[in-house]
């Protein structure tokens, strides 16, 4: 029975749990329940990844109606891989939340927080595995609405304006996607992604379909905060509660990157997007500008959360750069980075949240001298920071290594050099925080304050992520196998040399 419905579980479990979480009442109980459900969907995602790796893609017809008449769920190695990252991060963040939100969210809103978190997980899982272009829009809106709620739960009033900006940009993005999907439907008469791709193959180059592609790409780019459409992200990440930032930074934009990959490779076809429309040039330029502009912006921030938020936009640049190389290794490096970046940013934002828990501030001033007072938190920050930089033996090194080799394989020396240069900027911004933590004395006024480590429920998920950073930096078996198999699958039938047009 569970075998048969495995593909639907990552959506159904949190969907049913979210309303229940609202009426459980007691904060502690709701926390335990939400964590349990999230862990269950994580196990289901792991099972899905194993099944797809051994037996190939799965399809699940909702309502028993065969596609394209009904809505279909499609699970393949690619989305199972991202799904695993999302549900694992959700579980770890929920464990972390229990103590973290005590300090940041009004006690009467705790059950709303857990409900919104589960709704967000529902939406993200749905976006990943649905096989229907319109259904994607519905799940996108579930996750967006839940995200707006989560961001606005913070007690700082600036979270409100940040959320409003995010809401307006997000809704414009979603409406653009809706327009694009409408144009595809108009020409093909179907909404099923696989069916869309077969139907569209019949058109050589069609103005309506190309406009549809452009609108979907712009809409998705707004959601994934691709430069220059990233303006909502730094404010939202800075003012959201720490646990929310940790969750969003490691999942929401990654899911949007996957949606972009899915539309490019499984709906429009790589040959159309890259050969006919030459989108890879636009993507590559935007990605490189994102890496430099936003890494630079990160080096001049005094708020560490804002610093990491800008770093996130830069890291999204690396993922998009991987896609824009239009090769199996390039796409593979992008996919690996989706997974690895979730590990690093999750750990970094959790560490920053821990500093907020004790210091009540995330300004770089607050980090002074913390190396001695909160050794475990700062050690976690250091290792995850090294991973962002791309130091060997960390997960970040693996992503950068594959990205640079993929660029070199195509003789793109400049791109490879730029990637390495971008890492130097990461050294600067991570270095500033580490310098404050380890080499500066705390200001006189705080010297007397007794600062202790944070509760173990906050340290545990943080360190699980840190150890994962090291583990996936040394043992690349799972990530590389899944990402390679995924990108080979996505590039099936794509033959860059002999595209007949």
């Amino acid at each position: 029975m569970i075998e048969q419905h495995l593909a639907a579980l990552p959506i159904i479990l949190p969907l049913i749990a979210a309303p229940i979480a609202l009426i459980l009442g007691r904060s502690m109980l709701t926390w335990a329940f939400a964590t349990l459900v999230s862990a269950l969907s994580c196990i289901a995602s792991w099972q899905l990844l194993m099944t797809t790796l051994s037996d190939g893609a799965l399809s699940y017809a909702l309502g028993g109606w065969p596609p394209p008449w009904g809505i279909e769920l499609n699970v393949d190695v690619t989305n199972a891989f991202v799904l695993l990252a999302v549900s694992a991060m959700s579980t770890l963040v929920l464990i972390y939340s229990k103590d973290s939100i005590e300090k940041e969210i009004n006690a009467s809103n705790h059950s709303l927080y857990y409900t919104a978190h589960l709704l967000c997980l529902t939406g993200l899982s749905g976006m990943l595995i649905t096989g229907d272009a319109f259904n994607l829009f519905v799940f996108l809106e579930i996750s967006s609405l839940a995200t707006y709620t989560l961001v606005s739960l913070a007690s700082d009033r600036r979270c409100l304006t940040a959320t409003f900006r995010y809401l307006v940009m997000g809704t414009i993005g979603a409406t653009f996607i809706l327009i694009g999907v409408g144009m595809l439907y108009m020409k093909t008469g179907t909404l099923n992604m696989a069916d869309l791709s077969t139907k569209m193959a019949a058109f050589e180059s069609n103005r309506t379909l190309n406009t549809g592609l452009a609108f979907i790409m712009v809409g998705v780019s707004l959601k994934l905060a691709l430069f220059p459409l990233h303006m909502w992200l730094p404010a939202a990440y800075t003012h959201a509660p720490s646990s929310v930032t940790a969750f969003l930074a490691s999942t929401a934009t990654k899911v949007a990157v996957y949606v972009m990959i899915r539309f490019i490779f499984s709906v429009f076809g790589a040959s159309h997007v890259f050969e006919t429309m030459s989108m890879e040039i636009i993507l590559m330029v935007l990605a490189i500008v994102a890496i430099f502009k936003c890494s630079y912006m990160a080096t001049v921030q005094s708020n560490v959360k804002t610093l990491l938020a800008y770093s996130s936009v830069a890291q999204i640049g690396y993922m998009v750069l991987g896609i824009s190389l239009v090769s199996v290794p390039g796409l593979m490096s992008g996919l690996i980075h989706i997974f690895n970046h979730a590990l690093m940013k999750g750990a970094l934002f959790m560490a920053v949240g821990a500093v907020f828990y004790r210091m009540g501030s995330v300004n770089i001033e607050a980090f002074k001298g913390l190396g001695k007072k909160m050794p475990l938190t700062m050690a976690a920050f250091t290792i995850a920071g090294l991973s962002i930089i791309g130091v060997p033996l960390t997960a970040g090194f693996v992503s950068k290594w594959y990205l640079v080799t993929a660029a070199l394989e195509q003789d793109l020396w400049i791109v490879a050099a730029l990637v390495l240069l971008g890492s130097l900027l990461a050294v600067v911004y991570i270095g500033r925080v580490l310098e404050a933590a380890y080499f500066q004395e705390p200001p006189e006024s705080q010297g007397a304050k007794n600062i202790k480590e944070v509760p173990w429920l906050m340290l545990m998920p943080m360190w699980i992520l840190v150890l994962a950073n090291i583990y996936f930096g040394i043992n690349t078996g799972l990530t590389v196998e899944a990402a390679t198999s995924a990108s080979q699958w996505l590039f099936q039938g794509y033959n860059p040399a002999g595209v007949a047009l």
Partner: protein
Amino acid sequence: MELLIDLVLLAMLALTALRIIFLKDLFAVVMLFSIYSFLSALIFINLDAVDVAFTEAAVGAGISTVLMLGTIAITGRTETPPTKSKLLPLLIVVVTGAALIYGTLDMPPFGHADNPVHEHVAPRYIEESPKEIGLPNMVTSVLASYRGFDTLGETVVVFSAMIGVLSLLRLRKRDADKNPESGIKAHRVLQVIAKIVIPMIILFALYVQFHGDFGPGGGFQAGVIAAAAFILYALVFGLSNVFKVVGPKFLRILAVFGVLLYAGVGVYSMAMGGNFLDYNYLAENPLSGQHYGIILIELGVGITVFAVMLSIFYAFDSQIERANIQ
């Protein structure tokens, strides 16, 4: 004739939209928006989308307008003259619009029966759904059965909106109790008329709920209409009185129940051996299974929408009353 109506309506829409750009009085802006919504509902009828027209009229001209009016009651009704340049927005809009016009050039001509949208997926809905589902209203068949998962998602979206509004606008029962004199009690005529109209509105909501299989309507519209009855009651008799009938806590539980009822039908069909939301497995005979399934999930939608819309109204109204007390 259809063409003429269409053109007149579209022209009126364009005028309304253009007027909104230049108006500074927000009350007029909201009213024009309501008119815009009504006009689009008329266009939807002209284009044969009766269910959509029904919903647009209830939501755009109804709920959205009420919420917007509530908001400007708190935030003030005039817009300050803008300071930033309009050049960049204009440029963005012209470029986007040009891209869209370029996109229309290869679109299938408007209204032709042999367009791709009418050929591939839709014919099964039109030809088979009366046999496969057994309902005359094809929109209900597609909404509730073929694409039932979308509708479940839609219900969850509505539920998420409630979570968002409740977390932003704290809704407490005692806020309403502080001000028992709210409502417009001085107007005898309104009170008498409201007392007559409210039962009829509720009756109509029930009709829309259960007649959606045969005519336009369904859970969503019914939920909105039923909420409107209570909103009217709250406006005339005051928030503290309506809380005695349905309190905010009870509404939360109702909203949860609606979502769980919908999802529960899906889980039950899984337990009976089908896929999620496969109503064929709900009864011995697939056709009656579809019937049970659709009635139950429409009920779930109706309950959730009713509870959420009313909760959202409560949250806004108690905010206004709090602002009035201060």
